């Protein structure tokens, strides 16, 4: 098995007694897009920040291209930061309003001491063009741009250092539908042309479906289901994933669907149960706590494994 671009092992973040992220395992293979979905408060954004070492993990490991970065100091971390970059949701607040777009895009080069000022400027311009903005935008300020254009700037800034791993935290959630499609296309193009790996954090399942290779579903800090994208959309096994899928708006009003909104108790009550014989791997038996079990076809779901009959 090749080294993944990013791997989180049993990563946990506690704020006081509350575990925002609870023993999460996550693998983003090279050249692939893993979507992290879940409602707000599920811990998906915190997971992204943990991966970027912007929030310090309570426990667990972060492996960037096989290298354990979980305990490096910020100084030791700096060279590794070139490999992993981030795009946030709020396109305006993501850009320093006092700087021109050229300065913003060139800044990462300056931080890592790459090239002369003139070279940095040229590179920033060519990156602006690469994300679909005319080079003339280099002298403009963030407020002069639309949300979609600003998000392009954020992407250019994220990738100018040649990052191989991109954490995109709801990069399209604040955008109009048409603009959203453009940004998704841009990310898709860059992903294929640069061989980028991406952790795509979103609650927008329609975007996830068109972009992601694998979908990871989080609920209350835990991963409840994980499967290749097609598999998730075709055969979601966890009640929470099913309710997320049901909540996706459908344009055709005639497409009548059964909608389920589950409370926390209902989700717990409906957690799948398996007899050990049904599973490929040998899980711990009869634990009261649900655990992530492997089904056929790289499909994992949080379930209770018990030899007793399903109640």
């Amino acid at each position, binding site marked *: 098995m090749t080294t993944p671009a990013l791997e989180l092992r049993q990563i946990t973040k506690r704020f006081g007694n509350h575990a925002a992220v609870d023993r999460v395992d996550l693998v983003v293979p090279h050249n692939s897009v893993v979507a992290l979905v879940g409602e707000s408060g599920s811990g998906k954004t915190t997971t992204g920040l943990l991966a970027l070492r*912007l929030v310090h993990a309570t426990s667990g490991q972060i492996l960037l291209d096989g290298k354990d970065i979980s305990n490096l100091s910020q100084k030791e971390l700096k060279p590794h930061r070139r490999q992993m970059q981030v795009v*946030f949701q709020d396109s305006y607040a993501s850009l320093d309003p006092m700087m021109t777009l050229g300065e913003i895009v060139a800044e990462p080069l300056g931080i890592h001491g790459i090239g002369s000022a003139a070279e940095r400027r040229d590179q920033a311009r060519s990156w602006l063009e690469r994300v679909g903005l005319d080079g003339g935008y280099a002298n403009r300020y963030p407020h002069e741009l639309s949300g979609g254009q600003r998000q392009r700037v*954020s992407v250019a800034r994220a990738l100018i250092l040649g990052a191989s791993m991109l954490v995109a935290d709801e990069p399209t959630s604040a955008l109009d539908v048409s603009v959203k499609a453009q940004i998704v296309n841009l990310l898709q193009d860059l992903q294929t042309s640069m061989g980028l790996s991406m952790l795509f954090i979103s609650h927008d399942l329609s975007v996830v479906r068109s972009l992601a290779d694998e979908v990871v579903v989080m609920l209350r800090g835990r991963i409840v289901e994980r499967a290749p994208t097609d598999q998730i959309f075709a055969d979601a096994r966890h009640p929470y994933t099913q309710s997320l899928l049901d909540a996706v708006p459908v344009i055709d009003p005639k497409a009548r669907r059964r909608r389920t909104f589950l409370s926390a108790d209902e989700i717990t009550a409906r957690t799948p149960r398996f007899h050990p014989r049904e599973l490929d791997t040998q899980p711990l038996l009869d634990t009261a706590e649900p655990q992530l079990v492997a089904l056929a076809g790289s499909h994992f779901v949080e379930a209770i494994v018990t030899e007793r009959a399903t109640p």
Partner: protein
Amino acid sequence: MTGFILRRVLSMAVTFIVVSIVIFLMMHAIPGGPFDGYDMPLPDNIKARLMAQLGLDKPLWEQYLRYMWGVAHFDFGVPYQSPGETVMGLIAHAWLPSFTLGGLGILIGAPIGILLGMAAALRRNSFIDYLASGVATLGLTIPVFIISTGLILVFAVWLHWTPASGWGEPKRWILPILAYAAVPLATYARYARSTMLDVLNKPFVTVLRAKGLSERRIIFQHVLRNAAIPMVTIFPAMFVGIATGSIFVEAMFRVPGLGAYFVSSINKRDYPLEMALMLLISALYSISYLVAEILYAVLNPRIRIEGSGR
């Protein structure tokens, strides 16, 4: 930019005229006149002659126009309570202590407040943060005459470090300036903290951390620059307080500034002085807001763009 300033100056002039009319009417709406308050009332005929001499027998609109005609020629008349000098002369000698007191109070209070607020924002929930919040809350809620009394009690009465009141030599300036500094200090401690936190919580700061920029550089190259705009733009407004805010401090420390004249001119219906002082305040307001707007426009690229190209 020039057009912008011209437009503002023009609207300032209009505001100034409106304000002068309102003040003039309100001033005359107070019952009684300048010669009614004596223990031994003047005979009616003498009072009438004095009133005629000062033009106070004319209809209000005429009095207003005459006054404003004088103002246009920088003639603010003669104060009734001190007929030996002009209003301009009186303000000229009384304003120096007021502006020294207020100006030094701001120049001492504001930077300390800014540093305190910044330190609080950078070390949230630390001792310094609680100190800053405490200082800000007390500075804004405790009336200045209580602060003044406290200062006098501690430094003059108990410690004998400074004189209790008066002006004159700089040693006497210390306590009034400290008392005056409380409000700008508290205002800035709060304001600097909140603007800094506001910027620190922006995603672009998180992105800079993700880029590997050191915390120190993030603060000096990005956060301060962004937080400076709102901090600089409230600075001119601080000076407005000099004219009004020092009334209490001056009274507490018996500083021979403008403060006392505000009160006496109203009590004694000293129309020319009252009018001049009120116009001075509104001029201070107008000018400080104009300066604030210009500063804001110069500092903020978002405003800078309109009217001036890039």
